[in-house]
């Protein structure tokens, strides 16, 4: 067949398939594995969008190996964003706006993540700005000094919020203050002490140890073909050194099961409850995601019905999984409640959690949630930056390349029984570890009462 006729036949076939296909059926995009001419591996998926996106990440964990300098994980990317020797931060930001492009870079304990997005005709220009930033960063000492001071003030300001304070104390109980876990804890809670000692030489050493080609994950999504984008990936990343850093071992999480109350004059009582998840070595936590949404995700959740609708005690209550490492996560329930209803809210949270763990979830709860998960996944894949970041984050936790393609099938196959079994096997047993920040501990049944955050050590 001649190419033109071949094409026409294919178009007719596609049109016929479109007529018989169910309207709501949308195929999950296929993720392909590719290599650039310079040999850099990347994943690629086609997304119909005006913009093309590259989501990338380096395995990190370097900062956790530097005693007293865990804050390097945040400060390193921050200082990099100050600009290159040729293009300062403001100039880069304004150039990106002209291109309708965006560039983000951020650090966390185990990964340094970034995303670049730009309209297809402008992608090469935007890629040039990122390449310049990575190749020749200015790393100005005065901006590092400013960032450290500013970070310390912001951290103290955040801690004035009762919910943030409760959350930080909860992390302290979960991770402790000694050893690698203590280092991680200081990073997670934004302890200024973890940032103060960081110098430009540390950032330079971090950059040289981490930002290489060896442990680099790249996902491309958008209208450009894999061949088209490969050249841009090489332009950005091919000149980086052949190094990489390991994320390090999973932290050992602790569960005291205590109720600790910090007494402070607050407008609302903050409650954070939870504990470590068991054996997070399974990469696919889809059953856990469904289960935790039944517990505390949105207006349909049991905790919302009990604490907001039942008691009128709060505007919102949430339950979720906090990922502390690809192999370690924790259940976290958090809310801010009416001071006068704090005891009733605590009792309701405990009662609902016990019932959820004991009875599991019902089909009536998870069937609508499966539809919502499907909708949310499809919507997140609709724009190139969202799609690239989703797939990148799947890769980072060790999910296979075909995970996305089978997502809806796996989701539909989950039964209420399977989800209930999973939750009993993985979610923390009672009693939960609970931190409350309230005007008074009276009537809350506290195991330990403190007057300031510094006293938390005596409650461990």
């Amino acid at each position, binding site marked *: 067949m001649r190419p033109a006729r071949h094409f026409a036949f294919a178009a007719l076939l596609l049109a016929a398939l479109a007529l018989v296909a169910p*309207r709501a059926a*949308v195929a999950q995009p296929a993720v392909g594995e590719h290599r650039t001419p310079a040999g850099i591996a990347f994943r690629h998926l086609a997304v119909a969008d005006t913009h093309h996106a590259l989501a990338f990440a380096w395995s990190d964990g370097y900062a956790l190996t530097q005693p007293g300098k865990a804050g390097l994980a945040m400060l390193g990317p921050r200082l990099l964003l100050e600009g290159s020797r040729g293009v300062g931060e*403001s100039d880069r930001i304004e150039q990106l706006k*002209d291109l309708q492009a965006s560039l983000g870079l951020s650090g966390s304990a185990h990964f340094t993540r970034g995303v670049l997005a730009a309209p297809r005709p402008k992608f090469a220009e935007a890629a040039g700005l990122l390449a310049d930033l990575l190749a020749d960063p200015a790393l100005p000492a005065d901006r590092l000094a400013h960032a450290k001071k500013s970070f310390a*003030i912001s951290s*103290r300001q955040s801690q004035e919020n009762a919910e943030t304070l409760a959350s930080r104390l909860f992390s302290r109980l979960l991770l402790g203050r000694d050893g690698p876990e203590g280092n991680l804890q200081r990073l997670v809670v934004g302890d200024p002490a973890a940032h103060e000692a960081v110098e430009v030489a540390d950032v330079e050493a971090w950059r040289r140890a981490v930002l290489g080609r060896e442990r680099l994950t790249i996902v491309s999504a958008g209208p450009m073909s894999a061949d088209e984008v490969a050249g841009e990936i090489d332009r950005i990343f091919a000149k980086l050194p052949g190094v990489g850093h390991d994320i390090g071992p999973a932290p050992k999480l602790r569960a005291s099961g205590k109720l600790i109350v910090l007494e402070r004059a607050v407008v609302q009582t903050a409650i954070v409850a939870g504990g470590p998840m068991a054996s997070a070595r399974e990469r696919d936590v889809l059953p856990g995601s469904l289960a935790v949404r039944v517990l505390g995700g949105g207006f*349909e959740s049991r905790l919302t019905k009990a604490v907001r609708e039942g008691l*009128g005690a709060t505007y919102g209550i949430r339950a979720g999984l906090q990922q502390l490492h690809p192999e370690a996560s924790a259940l976290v329930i958090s809310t801010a409640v009416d001071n006068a209803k704090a005891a009733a809210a605590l009792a309701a949270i405990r009662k609902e959690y016990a019932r959820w763990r004991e009875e599991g979830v019902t089909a009536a709860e998870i069937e609508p949630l499966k539809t*919502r998960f499907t*909708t949310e996944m499809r919507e997140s894949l609709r724009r190139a930056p969202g799609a690239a970041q989703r797939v990148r984050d799947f890769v980072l936790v060790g999910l296979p390349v075909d995970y996305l393609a089978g997502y809806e099938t796996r989701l539909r196959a989950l039964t209420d029984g399977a989800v209930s079994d999973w939750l009993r096997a993985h979610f923390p047993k009672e009693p939960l570890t609970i931190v409350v920040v309230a005007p008074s501990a009276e009537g809350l049944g506290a195991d330990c009462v403190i007057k300031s955050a510094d006293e938390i050590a005596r409650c461990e």
Partner: protein
Amino acid sequence: MARVGGWIGGVAALVVAASAGIGPLAAAEERVAERVFLVRDKPGTPAQFRMLVLAGCSDEADGQCKGLAHYLEHLVLVGRNPEHKEIAIRFFPDASSNGTTSMRATTYIHTVPAREAGPKADLEQLFAFYAARLKDFSIREDEAARERNVVLQEHDWRVGSSPFRRFDRRLDRELMPDHPSGLWTIGTRESIQSLTLADAKAFHRNWYAVNNVYFLVKADIDAKDLKEIAERALAGLEAKRLPPRPVARQIELTLERKDYREADAQVERAGVIYKKLVRIEDGEAIEARAARAVLSSYLRSRLPGSPHQALVEVGKLASSTPFVGLDRVAPKTFMLRIGADVAPDVAPQALLAAIGGYVDAMAGSVPSPEQVDRLKRRIADGRANEDQDPAMVYNRLIGWLSNRNAYEEYASWPQRLADVSHADVARTAGLLAGPGRIVTGTMVPAGEDAGK
């Protein structure tokens, strides 16, 4: 009173180009009826539905925003009416639903998943539900009282627990003491506690009318089908004569400056805010709005001469890019707001003085002609990208209508922006630098001096 059938169906539609192909969609809104808009989306995408009520906090009785419009939004979403068993917010177990209230509008939002049979059945249910809610809503007294406490908790969570938000609210009241624009949508702790179900019913009777709402749908549905659904549901609803809007009152603009300073034990990082009210006689015209949009874009940028450059990069007085707002608050009256966190080791008064100096000098330091062209090109390019995405087109239209802008001017907005000249921007900047009423606030950590 006019019947709804009289004004459904009649306005020429804009073209919708929807395709299920691999390229992005070329999207546009279609006015399928006087009060109903459709943005056509591709198959397999969720349907979005919004009822936009053009009534918000600024429409509360006597211009006293107590949080009633917002409380009513809660009551509608958690009430139980004869035609459904679950509360409205759980109307569809597999959908997401919510509501928002602002000074000018109350919006009810539902996102329903893609169905094998398309979105018709869901949209029929939603139109029927909200047509009924335009007539009445029901909720038990005890549930309304419980929900009032939920709203109170929302207030405490959003405002009460933040010293900066509390202070900002106080400054707005000092700036506009006799006007609803000086009050916040959520109300105060005391005003929320005074709200009653009867008050909410009265507000509903005044403002929830078919001639005071828009229905906006983004879905894979034919315009004809959506029009039929809307006509069927809304038939029989009568238009109401709406009360005068308190926000339409002119602000008495006393030319003076007041400086406030508060210290709070919850504050670690000092912050300053500068608010200025100015009168612009021809500021309502769409040409003036377009010039303000370009100027706002400049004031929020990091371009040479912008507040960021002056206060952060050169002055080293602010720790991060200042917040800049430029809004219409009453007829011919506009508010410029500039807020910033004080840089470490800098005296707050130095930053506040620099902001005041920046505004005073605006007439002489406006963006250059090249910068104006650059900003206009950016805005046009951004809009061209938005035009490829039904979600962005949908959200853009919602933003336009919820600010009570006339739809008739919507299509001409890109051309208005393109027509903005350097002289237009310079004139607007000059007016902002001219006489006005100024209120400033300085928030400092406890232990530092406070007081006016």
